[in-house]
């Protein structure tokens, strides 16, 4: 049933893109219809995907709408590409198949190769070259790492192979999303490409790689995980500091946001430290005891942080495109990034920190908190420089939408509802609670 709906959605998407050469608007409406069909199918077949699905649907639609702000050479097809990315992002929690997980990763990654080059009146080839080079490298590393890890599952004693697979996967992920010290492409691409495609790359495109990595790491977790996660933790720490100090000392807005992405990916990487470890300990690692609720707490934290990052990036990049947006909206997004309660960014950080404490990574928790403090000046500066008076335009409409979503966690306090959703979601990715 769901597969059928997905295929139908893909068909509509393709049709819309093809017909958009003749009728421009069809690409947009085709994408919207496809997303709604896919979302309904997912929501009907398994209600616990509902919350996740709603967030992704919202991010997808906002990204689609924001594309209207740019006159692209491939107008129509770009809607199809974003639609495809959103479909893959929605789908990823609905599969138990490694091949499908990896396919979703590729489906989210490849459209960005084209999107990144979108520019009014031509294609930004130089940026495209820089971006594609690293993405290809990242995808290859990720895929090889994933396959090695999957292979070790069938071995009685994985040892070195597991470690190599783990490191490759994490390095691939780091390159893909821009974790320091493999972040070199991020500041350049973010500041020289058009802000609108970047808002998509910085929001929607970041979600699937993390979920895919998480899925594989949980699936292949074994007692060695406890020793090797230190590697990820160190990367996370380096990324936070590089990102935040870079952002703090940059002037150009797009560059500040690029470094802020590097920092945020560091926070999310911390979630990759916690979850597999919690799973391993939950499976009975000698000397450790853990409460199962920390698994879905960490998952909720990771996702909320990704959503909060997506909302903020969409809002800020759109504001850059239009040279400013309504000031209060900018401040709310900044506060969410900083982690001021009860905005979404706060819950994301909190839910990641709690399980981290539980698995003994207190030093990483301290670093996250210190880094949140370091980030305060540049987010506030960003908000004050991008904030202007109210104007009724597309940018402010988009900003209102992302702020409303950022405030969802305020309107529905406490966020138990989200945690409940995560509990069942965690089970679908192989975690037994």
């Amino acid at each position: 049933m769901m597969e059928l709906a997905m295929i139908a959605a893909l068909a509509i998407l393709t049709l819309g893109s093809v017909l958009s050469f003749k009728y421009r608007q069809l690409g947009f409406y085709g994408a919207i219809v496809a997303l709604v069909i896919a979302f309904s199918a997912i929501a009907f077949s398994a209600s616990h995907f509902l919350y996740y699905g709603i967030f992704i649907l919202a991010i997808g639609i906002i990204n689609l709408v924001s594309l209207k702000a740019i006159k692209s050479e491939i107008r129509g097809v770009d809607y199809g590409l974003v639609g495809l990315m959103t479909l893959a992002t929605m789908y990823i929690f609905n599969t138990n198949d490694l091949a499908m997980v990896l396919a979703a990763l590729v489906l989210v990654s490849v459209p960005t190769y084209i999107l990144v080059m979108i520019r009014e009146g031509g294609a930004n080839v130089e940026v495209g070259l820089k971006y594609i080079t690293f993405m290809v490298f990242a995808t290859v590393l990720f895929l090889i790492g994933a396959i090695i890890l999957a292979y070790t599952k069938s071995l009685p004693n994985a040892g070195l192979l597991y470690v190599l697979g783990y490191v490759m996967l994490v390095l691939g992920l780091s390159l893909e999303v821009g974790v320091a010290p493999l972040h070199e492409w991020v500041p350049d691409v973010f500041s020289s490409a058009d802000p609108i495609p970047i808002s998509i790359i910085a929001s929607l495109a970041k979600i699937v790689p993390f979920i895919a990595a998480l899925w594989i790491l949980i699936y292949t977790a074994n007692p060695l995980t406890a020793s090797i996660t230190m590697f990820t933790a160190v990367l996370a720490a380096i990324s936070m500091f590089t990102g935040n100090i870079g952002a703090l000392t940059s002037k150009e807005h797009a560059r500040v946001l690029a470094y802020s992405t590097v920092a945020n990916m560091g926070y999310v990487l911390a979630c990759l430290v916690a979850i597999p470890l919690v799973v391993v300990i939950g499976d009975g690692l000698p000397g450790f005891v853990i409460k199962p609720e920390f698994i879905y707490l960490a998952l909720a934290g990771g996702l909320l942080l990704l959503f909060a990052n997506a909302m903020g990036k969409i809002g800020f990049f759109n504001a850059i495109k239009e040279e400013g947006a309504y000031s209060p909206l900018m401040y709310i997004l900044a506060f969410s990034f900083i982690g001021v309660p009860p905005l979404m960014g706060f819950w994301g950080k909190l839910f990641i920190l709690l399980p981290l404490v539980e698995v003994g990574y207190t030093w990483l928790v301290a670093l996250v908190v210190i880094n949140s403090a370091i980030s305060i000046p540049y987010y506030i500066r960003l908000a004050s420089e991008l904030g202007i008076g109210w104007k009724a335009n597309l940018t402010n409409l988009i900003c209102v939408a992302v702020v409303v979503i950022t405030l969802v966690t305020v309107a529905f306090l406490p966020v138990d509802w989200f945690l409940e959703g995560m509990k069942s979601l965690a089970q679908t990715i192989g975690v037994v609670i």
Partner: protein
Amino acid sequence: MNEWVFLLLLLAPVVSSIPIALAYKSKEWTEKLPYLSVLGIFVSVLMSLHIFFALEEGPYPYDWIPELGINFVFMVDYLSSYMGVITAVIAFFIAIYGLDYMKGDYRPSWYWFFFNLFTASMLLVVYSDNLLLLFIGWEGLGAASWGLIGHWFRDDDEIAYVGKTGRKVGPLELSWPPSFGGWRAISTIRFGDVPMFFAIAAIWVFAGNLNISEIEWGTLFATIGAAGTVILLLCLLMGLFTKSAQVPFSEWLMTAMTGPTTVSALLHSATMVAAGAFVFIKITWYIEPWTLHGVPGLESVYILVLFVGLISGLYGALAGSGMHERKVLLAATTMSSIGLMFAAAAASFWVGHFAVLVAFWYMAVHAFAKASLFLVSGHLIHATHSRFLCGGLEFGKKMKPAFIVTIIATTFLVGMPPLTAYWVKSGMDEVMEHLIHDLGIVPLVLLILTSLVYSGLLAKFLSLNFIKGEKPHHEHVEGGGLMKLGYVMMVSVLFLLAYLIFTSEETAEFIHAGMAEVSIIVGILILLAYVVGLVKPRIAALSRLGTFFSDRMYLPFVNDYILPKTGFFVSHIVNEYGNRGIDGFFNTKVMPGLFGGISKGIRRIQVGGLTAYVKIVLGLVMIFLIIASIGGMGL
């Protein structure tokens, strides 16, 4: 259902004062909205009466952070049900008076908001069983006190000052404007609140509970040992002594008289300054120190409180005896009375439960009597345009209600037989007499001396305002209907209290004590002192001593000279020697250097060329993989 009672009790005053706070720019609205604020306080009165008559005794807990034992726990017991009504009723009467008194003031929004915030905070302190909740109310008291003392922050009207302007003693000018008064209050109170906060934290750590009625005090004291007990209680007492203006923290109360008179009446006589004594009474009520004689350290703390109280009592009375400013004189007597409350409550260690009752009832009688006197003073200041004692018999006849109220309030308060306070004071005499066995005769002597000076002092207040004072330069005796209503209602409660003392079971012992020989002798002496004060309010031969007393025995030097000089010296040292290091580390050298260095490093990588990036990334990936291979070899 009951949660609504407490919610209304505490929120009605605050919510009803928000409109006037918001409408601060509109003269039209700020003239009308005070009635709404007063209505809010009236709701509190109704709720406190409901609690008194309808609610059963016991704790009323509502969850807040149950995991940490921090909850909204209200306690309805003998003390809180009486004190709640007393607080709400006094606030209500004074609010009515304030409608007249504050008419035409330049910032009514500020006044009413803080006045009502104060009322709510005080009620929170009174009903809280949870120490953290109590502390929240306590801080509300401090904030409101600062806001209201400095109400006339422009310092542009000499009538709001304390001390004769321009009068210098040594390097110090002994006169204080409202803004300085506010500052002295908040700085002194904060000085005590911080240790108090630590004491509460320590109680939480060691007892695992913050509810006064549930804490196992005996076990707690045993856990922390003698030194721990002394340190803990001293820290707690720092908060209480500073708030209640006990020696040597009394200076702020004297200059708190720069605030509007309604504020002096409500905060700085009847309720807020008494809060320190009230909390001490409340805690003693539950600690039951008379059952804990085996606990090491506890006795020394109670001895300390006893003597701080008695010395403050005598100091306040003596200082007041030389004063000529209406309100400051009353402030000195207030401090004196509160000292006696502390002393009586502390005596419970040896005497038992009865001493706590004495302290509490003295607090009740004092609250109404002193508030009445303050309200009269305010009216007199309005009528004569002078903050100094003045007004002869002729003037007294024109101000009949004020005159009569002053006669009633002073005679009922000093402990003259057989008027209200006599019975409570007799209880106090009996308590101090009991102490002869354990602590000798000194406490009783100090009490009697204080009572005599106090009596003469209030007689002097009556005499110099209405009978023998100089003729005022200015007389404005018309109007002030609501003001008169305010103090007449206030003083009439003293009759009700007398009735309660005679009829209630708990106070039966007071009547017994009133019949005792010592009490009768002391009562007669007090009567004599009163007559002396009335007939001879000024004694020229003692004028130099009077000046020494009215300069508060030069205690202002500690507050305004020695402490600031010491502070400046310390800050000078810190600035000269400590700051360079701190600045160097955080602001100029180490941290900025670190950030700058890292930032440069991060930026140096971004050369823009694809080849360079590929080299970096490939190199890093290779290094990581090699390290992983080496590290993973042994696994």
